[in-house]
């Protein structure tokens, strides 16, 4: 579950919880530059993919800040869009 308020799903028993940004924009941050907003979104999505591949035996919080991230992914995405 991606959420801006992890304490709620963690206490009610969701297995995998990914920390999002803010209540009105969970997966992204419109106050950032386009590049940083995209990085934020990709980090959260990559964290969700990492969480799905991680065995858990209790409600577990996954932090996007701890997910390895290669900035060239954004450049690659831009290149794909340009093409």
């Amino acid at each position, binding site marked *: 579950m991606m959420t801006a308020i992890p*304490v*709620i799903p963690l*206490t*009610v028993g969701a297995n995998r919880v990914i920390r999002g940004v*803010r209540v009105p924009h969970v997966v992204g941050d419109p106050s950032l530059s386009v590049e940083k907003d995209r990085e934020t979104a990709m980090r959260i999505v990559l964290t969700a993919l990492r969480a799905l591949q991680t065995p858990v035996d209790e409600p577990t919080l996954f932090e996007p800040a701890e997910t390895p991230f290669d900035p060239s992914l954004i450049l690659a995405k831009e290149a794909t869009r340009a093409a």
Partner: protein
Amino acid sequence: MPLELANFKVDKVVFGSTTAWKDGILEIDGDEIMELVAADPYIENVNVEIASPGDSTRIVNDRDVLEPKLKVDGPAVAYPGITGRPVNTVGQGRTHRLAGMTVISCAEFPEVRVDGSRTWGETPPHQFVDMSGPCAISPYSALSNVCIEMSTEREIDADTWNRSLQAALFKISDRLAETTRDLTPPEVEVIDLTPKPDLPGFVFIPMLASPEHRFGATSSMGTGVYGITKLTQPWFLDPTEMLDGAVAGTYGGSHVTWPLTNSIVLHMARNHGKEFNFLGCIVVRTNWESQSDKQLMANRATQLAQTVGASGAIVTTNVRGQRFAETVLTVQACERVGIKVVLLTEEEDDENATASPILIPVPELVAVVSNGTGSASGPFPAVEKVIGGFGDESWAAEREPIHGRYGVSHTSDVYGFTKQSRVDY
């Protein structure tokens, strides 16, 4: 500095040819009261009604409820800041209060449709006050209420309309309180919160939703501290400031203006120096948008409580949902530094015992007083008179029981002041 509360008890409100308080009877000149509001071009129709305990009356579309108060010395005014009133610090000197009565603004509210046009919104079917019968469980059911019905035909936005309603409410409240200015009070209660030695120190921590996320930083559409409704770090207020109305205004359907001057703060102030010292009130704004913001506010509130030497706290929460996160994080932060907390809250619907009655049941939450689920067993008998129905006759009919659940509360009771039945554990 102590606060003197001069209590002018109101046993009954009646219409008359003048506006005056005498021996527990408040006489009001309805025409004079309506004239006070007539200058506002947005309020096209105004009507004054009285609802007394025992009347076969239902009050609908209540927007805010307050007790008339008057500061009689110094530059400060009661209910400071809201609707542009002076922000001089309150909580000292003498305050006259018309105890046992309220002024209630009644109005429908505009909603913005998806296409940007406006309509008068639906009134939630669970929000009304019965003055008699088995469901007269609201605190206002036991008080004499001067109700101001206001309406307009204009296409108006919610904040503009709300500012007119608030201004009208305070003009009328001020006028009623003014009747006592030159009178000798029958009773003066001195609230002196000088700490006594060897007693534990308690604070009151009301969590109060900010409307900033929906309506912007300067909106009138919520509870303000000296009129400030936006998201701010926690405020430390002297309890006597609270008693003078330093925190006022309604957020959604959650009335706090009357409760904050009449329930927990007053009770704690009256018991100061007996079993505990009442050290202060810490107002924590809720509706922060990320958990780290919520956590920070919880930490700062706890820091304030520690600074003043609190060993115990009463925490309340005024709207459920994500507002409850700040509440629970504050309870948790206080308990972790050794400040014992009692949380007063409504319960969530337990969905036939399949769900937690507390949205976020952290281990540190060890002492909770439940104020019910907002349900009322009903049915609510038909009434002879509806105030604030604005032509909708269906409000007078018998109404079904109300099942309290998220967003549905017949009587929002986070301060524990209603006449709901209860179970002691």
